[in-house]
């Protein structure tokens, strides 16, 4: 492929600040199995993060965005966009992004919008923010991927559907702690997973989930990006893939020639579950917490329906000074209170009250 397929802004863009958020509560997968399968069968993760009774995508996005601002050197009124990608926006109609923008002090001179593309809504907002900043339209833009994922009680998704995500403040490359060299997006119409209007829980399209959806899009996006950039798996210190369970990203990584040492630092799904629009980019925030200047990172998201955004990211010298200004991804993971299925049912509104 020629590099004409790459998405590359006119002016170089990078990550000026970033912040993660994971709620406190954890539901062990064996607790879900205790309720629905008598404990029989394999488990896709150890446990998943569950949001508290007073949390939603707006409140979680606010905390991640505050962390991203703390790691930057800018004031919130310098932001010209606050974009939130999620498949669990608190309102059907009324933007999450205006609540977040108000709470972080970015209003009123700001573009605000909610994005939706299943699990890749976060990277979708990031790619748009690269365009916004890289075209010269805006100096800074905030892109957030955050979810409180829904899984039907007893369904395979209930073991993994989790809460969490990350916020990225994008700006000029020279002010960045990580430069985004290029991105590439690979999209087809694939019926692997959906949730119809007014439905509480999503459906998955039987065998479409694995090969034709996740693996096809992730590996194609990664291969096309690496070919256009003239890189191989050896050029990247870390690789982060969308992580619906522990197996899929490990297998995708192997198919692309990555070792487990490259993948493990960004593989959070065994401990926090699948945070949907937050899943790939919270893996990236965990890597940014430990990466050294000069390290290169491959990030590939996946969203059902279906598509992948692939990013080639390079760490700059600014990372050392900025990353301790806000809690790290692992700080949130270490803050952990285990709950049982009954508490989970109450926190997540699964009890019929009237």
């Amino acid at each position, binding site marked *: 492929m020629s590099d004409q397929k790459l998405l590359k802004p006119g002016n170089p863009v990078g990550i000026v600040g970033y912040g993660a958020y994971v*709620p*406190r*509560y954890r539901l062990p997968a064996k607790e879900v199995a205790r309720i629905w399968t008598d404990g029989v069968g394999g488990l896709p993760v150890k446990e998943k993060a569950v949001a*508290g*009774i*007073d*949390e*939603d995508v*707006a*409140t979680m996005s*606010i*905390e991640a965005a505050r962390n991203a601002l703390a790691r930057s050197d800018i004031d919130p009124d310098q932001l010209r966009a606050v974009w939130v990608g999620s498949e669990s926006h*608190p*309102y059907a109609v*009324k933007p999450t992004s205006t*609540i977040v923008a*108000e*709470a*972080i*002090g970015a209003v009123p001179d700001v573009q605000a919008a909610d994005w939706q593309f299943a699990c890749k809504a976060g990277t979708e907002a990031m790619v748009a923010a690269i365009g916004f900043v890289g075209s010269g339209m805006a100096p800074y833009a905030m892109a957030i991927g955050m979810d409180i994922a829904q899984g039907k009680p007893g369904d395979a998704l209930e073991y993994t559907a989790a809460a969490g995500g990350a916020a990225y403040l994008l700006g000029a490359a020279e002010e960045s702690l990580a430069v985004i060299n290029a991105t590439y997006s690979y999209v087809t119409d694939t019926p692997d997973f959906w949730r119809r209007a007014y439905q509480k829980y999503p459906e998955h399209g039987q065998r479409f989930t694995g090969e034709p959806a996740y693996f096809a899009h992730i590996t194609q996006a990664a291969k096309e990006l690496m070919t256009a950039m003239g890189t191989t798996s050896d050029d990247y210190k870390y690789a982060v893939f969308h992580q619906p369970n522990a197996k899929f990203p490990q297998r995708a990584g192997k198919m692309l020639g990555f070792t487990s040492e490259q993948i493990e630092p960004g593989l959070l799904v065994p401990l926090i579950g699948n945070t949907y629009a937050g899943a790939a980019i919270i893996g990236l925030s965990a890597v940014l*917490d430990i990466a050294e200047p000069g390290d290169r990172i491959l990030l590939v998201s996946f969203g059902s329906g279906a598509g992948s955004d692939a990013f080639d990211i390079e760490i700059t010298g600014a990372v050392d000074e900025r*990353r*301790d200004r806000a*809690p*790290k991804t*692992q*700080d*949130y993971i*270490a*803050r952990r*209170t285990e709950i049982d299925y009954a508490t989970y049912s109450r926190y997540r509104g699964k009890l019929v009250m009237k």
Partner: protein
Amino acid sequence: MEIPRHWRLKQQRYKLVGEVCPHCEAKLFPPRDICPDCGGEAKQLYTFSGRGEVYSHTTVYDAPAGFEENAPYTVALVKLEEGPLVTAQLTDLGEQDVEIGTPVEMVTRRLRTDGDERGMLVYGYKFRPRLERVNQI
């Protein structure tokens, strides 16, 4: 329905915006435009750091209308670093004990729904035990 009130209070509720007295530099929360310390006019906005400690606390089992979903929950008087005492719910306690002097930090959370499931969502400040930073390099 109290939509105008929620809208009017959003700055102080979402991000602890109070006032600072230009005469005696006292920090005021909630904002009241007249400094209770020196009596001068104080309309300059001031965003609080959100850090403070528990001054006193109690647990609510019989919640007032609109807060039943959250019960039981802990309410505290929080002494902000900048001086004022704020009444707020504590959240994210997990199994953590609350004591007088427990360091806390402000988070913006969903306080309640205005009316039934068709009503607007009301967001505002709560406090939680300060997040432990275990991975500081």
